[in-house]
């Protein structure tokens, strides 16, 4: 059974994409925290340590760390390892700037807490223009 839900949020980076959700309750610093050549999280102690972010719809509370993190998102895109989309609880300037540069859809301020409402493995479509997030509990082929 395909359980589908549409969540309404605020579209910040006005692009569209979809992918498999990867959800964490930890903030993410792209500078120092994510390897720009592989897309793998390398921040020690992070819930996603060792996980590849490539093409995932990344759901986390908000960005942290240096503003150089914006450049890392750009480099991830160039290297083919950018996340498909980002959903934040409440985003901030580093992630917003990086998503614009890297053309990654970014939505925040959903009507429900996305870290609780979306589960790792869900298939998620993100529309950064309308702020709409469509969550499917199973992969699209099942």
């Amino acid at each position: 059974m395909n359980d589908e839900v549409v969540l309404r949020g605020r579209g910040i980076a006005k692009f569209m994409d979809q992918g498999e959700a990867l959800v964490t309750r930890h903030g993410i610093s792209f500078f120092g925290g994510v390897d720009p050549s592989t897309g793998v999280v390398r921040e020690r102690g992070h819930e996603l340590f060792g996980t590849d972010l490539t093409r995932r719809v990344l759901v986390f509370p908000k960005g942290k760390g240096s503003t150089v993190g914006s450049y890392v998102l750009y480099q991830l895109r160039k290297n083919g390892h950018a996340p498909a989309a980002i959903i934040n609880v409440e985003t901030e300037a580093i992630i917003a700037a990086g998503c614009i540069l890297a053309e990654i859809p970014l939505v925040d301020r959903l009507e429900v807490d996305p870290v609780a409402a979306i589960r790792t493995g869900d298939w998620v479509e993100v529309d950064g223009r309308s702020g709409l997030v469509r969550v499917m509990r199973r992969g699209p082929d099942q």
Partner: protein
Amino acid sequence: MDLDGEEELMLGGGEGTAVRKAMELLVAIGEVMGAERMVKISSAQVSGVSYGNIGEAGLEFLEDWAENGARVRVQTTLNPCGMDLERWQEMGVDEHYREKQLRIIEAFRDMGVITTCTCTPYLVGNLPREGDHVAWSESSAVCYANSVIGARTNREGGPSALAAAIVGRTPMYGLHLEENRAPTVVIEVEAELRTRHDFSLLGYAVGRRIGTGVPLFKGIRRADRDCLKMMCAALAASGGIALFHIPGLTPEGGRWRCEGLERVTIGDREIEDCRNALTSGGEPDLCCIGCPHCSLEELGEVARLVKGRKVAQGKGLWVWTSKRVRDEGERAGHVRTIEEAGGKVFADTCMVVCPLERAGFGHMVTDSCKAAHYVPSTAGMKVRVAGLSEAVEGVLEHE
């Protein structure tokens, strides 16, 4: 956000892809921060210049933007980069690092940026007027611009400051708005302030104590430009403070009522706590002066202290400043005096952003709490803080 016709044109791509991208970035940040409109800026100061900091990610981005025709439209200067652009070899920087660093500088130059690399833009001609809106990103310079000059800037990130320079505007939120410039806490200064280093310690203590907000200082009777510069750097390092007021000394200091505000007292004990927190045991082998970058007066003070003396065997005296101040210091004879004593005067970079660990020293003494705050993590070195004369004296030869 409410954009004017020219801004709409930029956002629509009417001025090319680089301008469109810069405007998209600023609109996104403006929306996130709740800005209602853009405000025109008179100058920009861009951080994220050192190769050690921005790495391949930043280098690629900057070269791409330069190639796409990005050009700044207001006076724009750079933060310190990762090496002295002329004397990199003396710092232990290798050819690979140098090549990358020069490409970064070249990309900025292609975008029309003045490639003088300093955290004290206000000492080298990037000096806004009171009331000007600007987009600066170096945290100590942001605090100085807001507090001492009376200009208005948020703590921009490197990418947003560059984007602001390219469109000549920044989103109007935070410290661009009068209502956010009011003091949030009163600091009663009971500690005695004699030297610049004392001001650095005071700033560090206040940042540690309050974290963020707009402090209004009572009990500071006199402070020169360099004292305030040191205090700005420390306030922004131990805390996230981007604006303070001192009635009678800073341009907006007399504007505010303080009734009902929280009051915090900083006395000799709080200062001593900071000194201890920034000091580890052992004997320093490298004295670093110039965080923020030295003024000509500070350079002169170091020169007077070392005149006719020698830096001890196995120790170092490294002084950091902007290219412009070093040139002035050369004309005044200060640089020669310091270098005859065995010290070095580096420009365009500093102890926090250069690969200091490659120089072969293990324990830094400095008069700057900001430098002492960062160097243990950036270079893995032990630190100690002291007033300028004590710090310098500690690395000189003694009979």
